Structure formats: C-alpha cells, structure tokens
C-alpha cells in the first residue's frame, strides 16, 4: 500500500472514541524506533498489539480523574484498552496472553499514540483495567 505520511509520523486505523466509527491515530517514527531497538518482543508488541487495541478496544477511557490540576495538554486524552489473544517474550516469540492483564494504548489530544503497556485487569471484569473507575474521568466507549 502506498503511504502518504506526515513528516515523522504514520497513520493507523482506529476506532473513534466519540462516534465508534473508523478513524485514524498517528504514531511517530521516533517512538517506533525507540521501542523497536529495545527487543524483538517490544517491536512485535508495538507492531501488532497497538493496532489491535486501537481497532478492537474492549473500552476507551478519557481523562485522568486524580490529576486535579491537570494542564491543557491533557484535554482529549484517551486510553484504549484491549484483551489481546497473545503476548510476546523479549525474543519476539508469541506466548499466551498474561492472565488478569489488559493492554493499554494512550492517545493524546492530537490523536497521537504515545505509550502502550500491559496493566492489571479489574477483578470483576477482566476486559477492563484495574481501578478504572478511580483512574479515569469517564468511559468514552
């Protein structure tokens, strides 16, 4: 596929938190490079679990409830959550997903995915992150 890229960024398909319709999210080349040079496992996490989470979220949350003095940077901040079917070890070998964990992708107000990682899941609903009611301002989707 031919790719018309913004300087320093690429675009991936993603679910829009407001409408539930197909949209797009950006990732910077710098971030991709920083993650890829850590290990084959980190590269596969970014290359496969990030798109999966953006396109098949179990939930999308907005805002951080505990940041009372959060500055303007945080407006429109989203956390995509998913329950991937696999994980990757440091050598990039596919493994079963981590039990009682979800995968989170953080997207800023400019629709740039800037961070992603595994996190403990909620005790009553393992498709959601632990403490989501305290941690996030609201559930967008």
């Amino acid at each position: 596929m031919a790719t018309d890229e913004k300087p320093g960024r690429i675009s991936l398909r993603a679910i829009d938190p407001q409408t539930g319709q197909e949209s797009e999210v950006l990732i910077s080349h710098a971030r991709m490079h920083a993650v890829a040079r850590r290990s084959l496992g980190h590269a596969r996490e970014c290359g496969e679990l990030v798109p999966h989470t953006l396109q098949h979220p179990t939930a999308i949350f907005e805002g951080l409830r505990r940041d009372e003095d959060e500055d303007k940077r945080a407006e429109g901040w989203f956390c995509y959550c998913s329950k991937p079917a696999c994980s990757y070890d440091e050598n990039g070998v596919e493994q079963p997903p981590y039990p009682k964990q979800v995968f989170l992708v953080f997207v800023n107000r400019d629709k740039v995915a800037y961070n992603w990682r595994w996190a403990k899941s909620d005790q009553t609903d393992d498709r959601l992150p632990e403490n989501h009611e305290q941690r996030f301002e609201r559930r967008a989707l």
Partner: protein
Amino acid sequence: MTIMSNEEFAKRMMLMARPANEFKPEATYDADGDCIEFLAKPDPFYEERIDDLVTVYYSQKTNEVIGSMVKGVSKLAKRLAEKLPGFAITIEDGRIRLEHLFLAGIWLQEGKPPAIRILAYKKLAEIAERASVDVPEAMCDAR
C-alpha cells in the same frame, strides 16, 4: 493522509527491531506524551501507577522493577524551578541524572507519602543510578 495497513506497520517495526541481547538501558523523552520513559531491561513489562507523576514498570518474567514513566515533564520542570531551585546544581554538562529526578519526585511530595510509594521511588533511583542513565537538560527545561 493514507492509513498504513496493519501488515505493513508490523513489517516496518520488525525491520527496525534489535535483539534483546543488544539492549542498553536508556531514558527517552516523548514530546507527544510529555513524558520520560526509562527502561533498564528488555523484558516485557506491566505497569503500576503509583501517583500522578510516576508509573512503575515491572518485569513480566520476574516481577522486579525494571523501569518507569515520568508523566507531565513540563509541569514537573515548572514545579522544580519554583519549589526546588537548588535542583539546578545537579545539572552537569547539560545532562540531568535520572536518579536525581526520582529523588526530586520524592521531595516534591505534599504531606507524608505512603511508605510503598517512597520505596518505589527509592528503587527507581537505585536502578537508574546503577544503569547510569541521564537525560538532556533541554528535555526538561529545568533551570
């Protein structure tokens, strides 16, 4: 802007990937998230958010602390300049030692922080010192 296919994106990541045995501890600033991410080992990890400033990364293999994310770096720099102006003396050759940032994180706590949070900060400072990781001063604009 054309959307990249999942297959092309995954392929591109693998082309850039390096084996875990070439890993070196490092701290990187990400302007999109205004955060500094520190990783001391190449292990896959899970997070635990300890406060508004720091999220700790634990190894999926060993459950030991192997890294962290410091969030809101611009706001942190402003608070450092206001509340800990002496922090500037820790900056050498335009570089800030990462362990100093973690210690500053403890010193900026309001009230008495829970012991578990202090332990997490101390552990992060310890592994950052052991890994000898620093970040450019311009990254934090801490003077």
